[in-house]
């Protein structure tokens, strides 16, 4: 029950990438990594309601599997509106930061750090990075370009997410975007677009073929 709920919650939070603000999403993932499912069961439905985020049928099933055993309020869950299709991905992805010449993932300090942590590590597949920017910038202020990490893994997805987020925060990324994709996970459009424009940083112990597991059709 515990592992199934955790994996369901992890997949649910994966599916919310690009739909919930990064600032909330990384924290929910951190709570999941810390085993705070009870807190998530209370806070996540409220957040979906307040942020007016709807869910697909599959996502409702994940929500139910993840949060109901931990005390989520059924009344709140019932109020979350259903989606029949996902909205357009609100971001575009590039292998390099198009606004900063020379700002690449491969070769910068974070890449060195990630390689030290993840190269040859059990349960970890490919480690990739891409740069994300809003498809329709608001027009006010600086257009934010943010690095997104894409990692495939066969186990401990939530814990790995939490670990990589904390590493990124420690080196200055306040709202880290870390997508740890389980083997066999069928990526949603957000992750497909991100993978398509990603750059390989290093490989763990679980991917001898150099293929992004999550990108399998």
């Amino acid at each position, binding site marked *: 029950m515990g592992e199934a709920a955790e994996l369901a919650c992890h997949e649910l939070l994966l599916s919310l990438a690009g739909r919930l603000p990064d*600032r909330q999403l990384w*924290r929910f993932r*951190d*709570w999941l990594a*810390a*085993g*705070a499912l*009870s*807190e*998530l069961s*209370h*806070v996540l439905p*409220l*957040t979906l309601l*307040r942020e007016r985020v709807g869910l697909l049928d599959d996502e409702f099933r994940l929500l139910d599997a993840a949060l109901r055993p931990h*005390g989520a309020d059924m009344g709140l869950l019932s109020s979350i509106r259903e989606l029949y299709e996902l909205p357009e991905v609100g971001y575009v992805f590039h292998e390099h930061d198009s606004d900063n010449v020379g700002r690449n993932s491969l070769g910068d300090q974070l890449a060195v750090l990630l390689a030290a942590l993840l190269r040859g590590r059990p349960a970890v597949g490919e480690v990739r990075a891409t740069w994300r920017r809003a498809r329709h910038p608001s027009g006010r*202020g*600086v257009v934010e370009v943010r690095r997104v990490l894409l990692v495939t893994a066969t186990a401990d997805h939530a814990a790995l997410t*939490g670990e990589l*987020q*904390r590493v990124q*925060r*420690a*080196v*200055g990324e*306040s*709202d880290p975007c870390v997508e740890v994709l389980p083997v066999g996970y069928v990526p949603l459009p957000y992750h497909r677009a991100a993978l398509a424009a990603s750059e390989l940083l290093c490989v763990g112990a679980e991917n001898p073929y150099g293929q992004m597991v999550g990108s399998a059709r």
Partner: protein
Amino acid sequence: MAESSDRIALPIRVHDFLLALAGRIDDDALTDARELLAVAELDRAVDLLTASLVAGRIPLSADERDELRTLVDAVRSAPALVDRVIVNDNALLPRHRFTTGVMDDPAPDTGVLDAIGRVIEVLPDIRALSCVWRATPAGVPAGPVPQRVVLVETGPDGFAPSTAYRVEQSLRRAGIRASVEVIQAGTDVTEYHADALAVSRRVQLRQVSGRGHDANGESGGSLFTDSPTPRTVTSTRRRYATGAHAEKRSTVDASTGRWQPRIAHDEATAAEPEPDPVKPYEAAAQPVAEPASHVAVAPVEPEPAPALPELALPEPAADADLSSRERELLRQLHQELAKREGESPEETGTNGWTGHQRHSADPTATSPEVNGFPSAEFNSGTDNGGQFSGGGEFNPGDFGGPAWHQSTTEQTAVNGIPPYGGAQG
């Protein structure tokens, strides 16, 4: 005790609880909770706080847990969540080090005034502003260090949650990442904040038109003094006492400005820790031509780059040294006051400091100086045309007080325009 708590507005209680957790949970959680608080989503603020404590395995004292439970009940959140918070009265509290900069670090106040000038113009009753770097990480998903900490003091008419939110938003828009800690004058401060203040760089809020930052003279008790000899402080945090917390807001006299116990031992030390205490007075006595049509803010006169000790532990000798510094301060006060006594009213008048004229003209006004330090209270009427209301009264702007008082009187003289409010009688 419960009655005292009940008299305090719920947002203020949540704000105070967040202050008590500063340095223990991550800065972003504090910032987000303050934002939720400011936009009237108290339940989400308390939920965020509770979940962050649970997920980060951050222990609270039993008193703190009780206060959290009260807050959770008050916002009608799930009380069961509080049961998962670790309670440990003996847990070691995080130690923090504060500094105004190491090597090539920029000064902690760099760009701050430019970023928040507009917002502090409209927010009510902002008394003082200080900035410091925190060199140690806070919370479990800690952010990078050094972390800039901006400390804001508000008066009784200020609203701390809004101030924290608006100031932080302004800084963020300007690309400045900072924790904004807003404390109301007259309340106790945690060791975390006291240690931050002890090292911080005071930023001078200069009032030109008299609007906005009128502290009615009460900020003479502000603990946002210019920092003493810059040094790094390592602190442990005091425990949060619900009862004391509840009482302090209900009974405190906001005019007392007790908010840095380390410095505010007594009146003499409250005015003390200027490396060169004559300097503010001299600066105030210089005519400065500046536009009087708006509220302006200006950085404090640049301090010499602090030669920081190597992240030194708290200096046990500092307190022992206090008496000699006090003596030095008093000596300089004597000199300064004697100097003023020797000035002719005309000379003083050229500075336009009408308060000085009155002061010099009133022989009784000198009496408190016999003790080397004026003892009478500052009268808020100083802003009303810059007049003292009675003999023996002391303008904190004369010495070690908030510099914008000085600026107001300067502006009156320089531009020939009475300060805001002064013309209204």
